């Protein structure tokens, strides 16, 4: 029952499955599904090691998405580890099984997954990387912009070689990017609220002038109303009403 609630298969996966069946691509479809499952296993194991709660796992025709019910203020190291272990498992799988079709398919899925586009693993890596140098709000919006630019480039490949399934997948990804864009303010507010509700301990301290410049992995002193106050004081002012 728990598995049934967590594990979901996207309708697009069924469509691809059906098309692969009627055109006789049984073998490739089975190999393909096994690669995706193995990839997700990587994320799940990483999640379990870091003690993240899994919300759901969605199976898609170009890879899976593992969604965690976790705070946005998790350490960057853990985020990086979880994002990396999926592709890493795929690389391990690549070396375990010695078959040309299998390896080529594995490589294509791996490369596609590492594109910096929002629901894919590449975007998570980009986001972690940006968070080291940029504030949370900025790096999130920048990740979305990078995704949009990348997907427009990928759309051009369709013009040269039309493929209806690839087009469907790209449209799905595009919708996900738009959703993420509209959730931007919500994520930022959630991020601040979590900082208010729970006490996180960060070693580095940074002086900033605006609350929008809060970094994910730092403590802050904020210039507000012509004087400096701690991040905590400002958050209390914001949320305690």
């Amino acid at each position, binding site marked *: 029952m728990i598995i049934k609630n967590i594990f979901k298969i996207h309708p697009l996966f069924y469509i*691809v499955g059906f*098309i*692969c069946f*009627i*055109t*006789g*691509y*049984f*073998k*490739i479809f089975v190999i*393909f599904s096994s690669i995706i499952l193995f990839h997700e296993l990587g994320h799940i194991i990483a999640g379990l090691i870091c003690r993240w709660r899994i919300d759901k796992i969605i199976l898609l025709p170009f890879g899976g998405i593992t969604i965690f019910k976790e705070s946005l203020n998790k350490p960057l190291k853990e985020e990086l580890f979880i994002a990396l272990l999926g592709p890493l498992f795929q690389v391990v799988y690549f070396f375990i099984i010695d078959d*040309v*079709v299998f390896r*080529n*398919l594995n490589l*294509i899925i791996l490369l596609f997954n590492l594109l910096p586009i929002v629901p894919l693993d590449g975007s998570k890596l980009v986001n972690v990387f940006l968070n080291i140098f940029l504030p949370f709000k900025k790096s999130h919006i920048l990740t979305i912009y990078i995704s949009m630019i990348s997907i427009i480039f990928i759309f051009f490949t369709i013009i040269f*070689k*039309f*493929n*209806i*399934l*690839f087009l469907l*997948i790209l449209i799905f990804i595009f919708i996900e990017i738009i959703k993420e864009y509209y959730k931007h303010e919500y994520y930022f507010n959630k991020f601040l609220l979590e900082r208010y509700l729970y006490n996180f301990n960060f070693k580095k301290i940074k002086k900033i002038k605006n609350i929008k410049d809060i970094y994910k992995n730092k403590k802050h002193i904020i210039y507000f109303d012509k004087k400096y106050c701690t991040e905590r004081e400002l958050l209390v002012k914001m949320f305690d009403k």
Partner: protein
Amino acid sequence: MKKLSKLLFVIILTVITLIVLKGNTRFRELFYKYVYDTNISFAQINNWYQSKFGSPIPFDEYINDTESVFEETLKYSEASIYKDGVKLTVDYNYLVPALDSGIVIFVGEKEGYGNTVIIEQENGVDVWYSGLSEINLSLYDYIKEGSLIGEANETLYLVFIKDGEVVDYKEYI
């Protein structure tokens, strides 16, 4: 409750089909022909699908390993009728090329023919390549025209089947 009703629906459907099969000879013939004797033509559907919508797996061209494709067509010195098909006399350790693109739907042994590969071609014809000493394919591989099927020692049997019926080999080789 939902599962029980599904089960009952399947039972009712089966019983109705059986009753109609018993009573109606015309229906029985059609049923046997389309359910038991003919296959879904994967190769034909694939051909049509690819021409309209592109490959079922995006970037398909990078996935399949390109096997050696011969320039020459099937070479043989003698042809005679054998069972349902034709017996060809070929060279010793002859490398058998595929006559047309298609999907491998059977790999194994057929009685009276020996090691057999059946390829369902894009034109809807199933071709049996029999009497092979070595097979280079596996089940459900898609192959291109002229790709290597296997090796034959002096004799090679071919059978051509369309819509469940054996057809004359002279049209195809």
